[in-house]
């Protein structure tokens, strides 16, 4: 790991002043950043430790729960208000990483973790995300893990966060603070499709801090289903966050469906949701939703299996909510 200078400011003002300098990078849990720096995927001259900032709290609000950017994944998952009002969120967090990682990893860092695409993480390979213009080795390489929807000729890497998928179903909002002031960004506007600038992954500006994430409690019934190559402690091959509200006769009034492992961003499918509204959650409706979801799919050599897999995952998740 290349050496760097280290600062641990005690105020957001000081953090922002340091963070807007070139070569600066924030560190929270360090569980993603340090791996990337050890592998030479990222190099930074100044590391700014955020842990002294007062952004650790988990607080109930009138609409749901506010998660401080520095709240640990383990603490959020175990918080009584989260378990009671946002069981989908707790379930999702516990499906990610390992107990040790969850004790260190923060909510803000989780949202900003970078793709596990092996070409991105191998500094000797071409990658437009790591080195714009160098090419995308995944297009014709080993692309089993890659996107089937939303990719471009420049990048087909998927976003690895489970949390971001649940927050996309829950319609969370991200609070940020930059030199230009505070902003509130809906989670669906937070992540950017690669297009021809795969190095731009989020709406965050240079040096801008995530301060908190607001998660509204929905009253909907939900489930997070994660399909992995081994039983646990593994990233998702595909995942589904499903939230459903049914009315009289079991007819679906509201449906929110978000998916991980299939797209460069947590993928919300309004088309699939529309197939469920006004219908009972029977096999035909679920099948129609799956078809609508994968209609725009453009799989690559090694990942065509994700098309039936994500449909079956959706069917299993929805079947459990009947």
């Amino acid at each position, binding site marked *: *790991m*290349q*050496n*760097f*200078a*280290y600062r*641990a400011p005690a105020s957001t003002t000081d953090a922002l002043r340091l963070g807007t300098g070139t070569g600066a990078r924030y*560190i929270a*849990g*360090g*569980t993603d950043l*340090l*791996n990337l*720096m*050890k592998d030479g995927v990222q190099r930074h001259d100044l*590391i700014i*430790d955020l*842990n002294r900032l007062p952004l650790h709290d988990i607080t109930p609000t009138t609409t749901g729960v506010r998660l401080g950017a520095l709240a640990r994944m*383990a603490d959020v998952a175990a918080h009584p208000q989260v378990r009671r009002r946002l069981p989908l969120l707790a379930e999702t967090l516990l499906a990610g*990483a*390992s*107990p*040790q*990682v969850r*004790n*260190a990893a923060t909510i803000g860092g989780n949202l900003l973790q970078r793709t596990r695409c092996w070409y991105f993480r191998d500094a000797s390979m071409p990658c437009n995300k790591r080195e714009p213009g160098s090419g995308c080795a995944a297009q014709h390489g080993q692309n089993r893990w890659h996107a089937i929807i939303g990719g471009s000729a420049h990048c087909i890497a998927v976003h690895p966060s489970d949390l971001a998928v649940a927050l996309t179903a829950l319609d969370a909002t991200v609070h940020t603070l930059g030199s230009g002031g505070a902003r509130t960004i809906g989670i669906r506007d937070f992540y950017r499709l690669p297009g021809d600038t795969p190095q731009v992954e989020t709406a965050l500006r240079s040096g801008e801090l995530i301060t908190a994430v607001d998660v509204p409690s929905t009253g909907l019934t939900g489930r997070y289903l994660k399909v992995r190559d081994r*039983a*646990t*402690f593994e990233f998702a091959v595909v995942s589904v966050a499903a939230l459903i509200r049914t009315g009289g006769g079991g007819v679906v009034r509201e449906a929110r469906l978000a998916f991980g492992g299939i797209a460069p961003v947590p993928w919300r499918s309004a088309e699939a949701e529309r197939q469920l509204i006004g219908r009972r959650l029977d096999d035909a409706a679920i099948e129609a939703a799956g078809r609508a979801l994968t209609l725009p799919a453009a799989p690559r050599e090694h990942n065509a299996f994700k098309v039936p897999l994500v449909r079956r995952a959706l069917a299993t998740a929805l079947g459990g909510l009947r």
Partner: protein
Amino acid sequence: MFSTSRRTVLKTAAAAPIPALLPGAPASSGVTLTVNGDTVTRQLEPRVTLLDALREDLGLTGTKKGCDRGECGACTVLVDGRRTKSCLTLAVMQQGREITTIEGLADGDRLHPVQAAFIRHDGFQCGFCTSGQIMSAVACIREGHAGSDDEVREWMSGNLCRCGCYPNIVAAVRAAADEEQ
């Protein structure tokens, strides 16, 4: 637990070389760590992980370096009582916290109940993952996540064992948890 010769071999095998300081790069500074109740100060570069500081600078080689990427759990230590992977944090970030390593578990010659249970249940073969397994198990039991075999498997999933001692590890964790009740 290990003979001197074995420890030396492990240390040589696991220690990654720390690259020389680049010209113009920020120099070392005094980093104060509290490990197993002792407070010590060492001159460390900011890039030194807690794992490397423990092994290379404090001579506490009981904590192992397997993957150095957060994937195996061999480097698990407790920070303020919570289990964490020492390869994924910088030493400089852990100042002012109470760090417990495998060397700090036993009470003199009396083994910690989890250490004793690992021996009784034959919970290791080569022993490389064992200190991480034991540190993780201590926390797992304290968190209340050792109520069934399945629960132990899930909550110990951050610790891999290449020798495949999992059945005996699960038995050891269950037994130690039962004892503490």
